[in-house]
């Protein structure tokens, strides 16, 4: 079966471009007076505004943060549950004992490249120490900087995820 091709007739006389130009300019000028919807990232950051637009969900799971106690020590007791639950196997933990006989992590490293940001580490943590963060800007100059050590995890200033509450799964 032959394919039908619609053949357009070429204009026989010259057509003016003025009308089309004016039409385009009118649209451009109309936008100058309308509400702006573009966010000026990175000068402007996503913060929760009155309409709730352009903000991160409270369940957003970004790069990790380790919370600290009043003395500035990490809350982690090196129980080993997060490396155990981690499906990507990205957490390295070596437990040790400090001068007061408390258990604490000698080495705590998260490879953020391997991490799949499932948030299980935060969910399983009995001390509410490790959290996934409300954070999405992670650029670095070298790959090795993406292995976050304990010091780095503690000094992250960003807010942390609240994950989801099983009794309130929609966050209401």
């Amino acid at each position, binding site marked *: 079966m032959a394919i039908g091709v619609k053949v357009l007739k070429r204009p026989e006389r010259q057509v003016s471009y003025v009308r089309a130009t004016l039409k385009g300019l009118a649209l451009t000028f109309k936008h100058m007076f309308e509400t702006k919807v573009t966010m000026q990232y990175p000068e402007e950051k996503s913060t929760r505004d009155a309409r709730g637009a352009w903000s991160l969900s409270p369940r957003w799971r970004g790069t990790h943060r380790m919370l600290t106690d009043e003395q500035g020590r990490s809350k982690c*007791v*090196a*129980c*080993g*549950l997060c490396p*155990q639950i981690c499906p990507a196997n990205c957490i390295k933990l070596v*437990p*040790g*004992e400090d001068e007061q*006989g*408390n*258990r604490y992590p000698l080495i705590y490293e998260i490879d953020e490249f391997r991490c799949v940001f499932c948030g299980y580490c935060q969910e399983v943590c*009995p*001390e509410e120490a490790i959290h996934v963060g409300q954070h999405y800007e992670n650029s670095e100059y070298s790959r090795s900087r993406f292995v976050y050590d304990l010091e780095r995890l503690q000094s992250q200033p960003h807010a942390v995820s609240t994950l989801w509450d099983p009794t309130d799964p929609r966050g209401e």
Partner: protein
Amino acid sequence: MTQELVTVTIEGAQVQVPKGTTIIEAAKQAGILVPHYCYHPSLPAPAVCRMCLVEVEKAPKLLPACVTAVAEGQVVHVSSERAKKARTGVLEFLLINHPLDCPICDQSGECELQDYTFQEGRAATRYRDYPKRYNPVEDFGPDILYVTNRCILCTRCVRFMDDVAKSAVLNVSERGDRAFIGIAEEQLLDHPWSGNVVDLCPVGSLISKDFLHKARAWELDKTASICTGCSQGCNITIETRDDAVVRLKPRPNMDVNRHFMCDTGRLDYRWMNRGDRIEAPLLRQGTKAVATDWDTALDRLGQLTGGSGRAVILASGRASVESLGLVRAMLDGFDVTAAVRVPTGPEAPLAGIPNLALRSERAPNVHGAERLGYTRDWAGALNAAGTADLVVVLDASLDAEEEQRLQEVKGALVVLGTVVADFHHRAELVLPVTTMAEENGVYVNRDGRAQRYMQARNQAGMARPSWWIAGEVLAGPGPDADAPATAAQAFEDVGRRYPAFADLSHQSLGWVGQTLRETAGTAR
């Protein structure tokens, strides 16, 4: 001697057990675990924990399974409504004062309180009026800490020290809800077998300082092995984490060590993790030792062992039957003087168990070596080494003076070693071999019992078992050479060469070993 059998029904399963067996043991034979804390097969049963209460039909009350003997036609329910309710109640009482510090507790993951609470315990406490009782951690001895708060007073540790170790230093102090495990004044828990209380403790109350915070129970890989501490040959489990040995635990073997092992053996694992290992075969070329591949090294070894004259083997008492047998066979062309080094130390018996002690011969395979034509005449072998044509050192640990003497030997020196030593630069050939933790093999203990051990971690660098090296040399070069590829094949090869090990195989030895038939003499 036939024992009278009785038939009981446990959870619907009929079992026949000898008269006098306790319900808990009969249930074990039916494949049913009765939850328990104070009962332990190697200790007397006091029935204090009340955890093993089971329902027996026609009995008015629940009966403790650990002390009640079975009777003909008895019908026992372990998980009936009444029995379950009793256990839930016991668990609730235990948890009133038990701290919720599982994240930092060393026992977590292998804790019986944790297990049973998950199975049958209440989800939440009903006891909110008073804070939990708190007592500080006590230091009991060289390797043992007592965390008072976690104790559930099963008294296994007290009974072990009283009835098995016969050194009654532990007791139950105070009464009622203030009770705790006390230690006799001015005493330490420093009995040579005291480390067993850590294994016996069903919760994390008695913990080992050596293992403290080192690893979590679920991270450990466990391998059946044999203790290298002495010639008793206790069955152990080597527990590794990330390819490093972190602790040794006794493995039950009713004929050798029951459920126990001594502290000397328990803490003797650091040498398995040594980092200063020989990682490649080193071949002497002129004045230098050059790292080479196995083919070249085996060719050279073949040349050296192809000669004749007098040869001396200086072996470690830790070498396996396979290695000792094949290395000895490799030198058949020579007039061989072979000796194993037997370090000695004081004997430390465990009083309550017959024929169980930390032996004064501190080498695991002396008796296997003797059946393979090795002697204990270490000094004589060293003297002979001075003038021998070929000296083979099989992973023997030497002191400075002995190393000096080996540097002055006249003949060729071949070292099959694990760790680097000074005298190696005199050697014609240094071959890296595996430690016992890195190979499969067989040891023979002082009662002539051959027992297998398994590979627990990866070998260092290019290291190979000594039996592999000797087997390759014996088989000769070429693609058709029939060298043993596994320790099991090497063991059968040894069996063909030495009558003491004839008709045995790794398979027939199994997990608990087998006593060798005594053959006349030790020579071939």
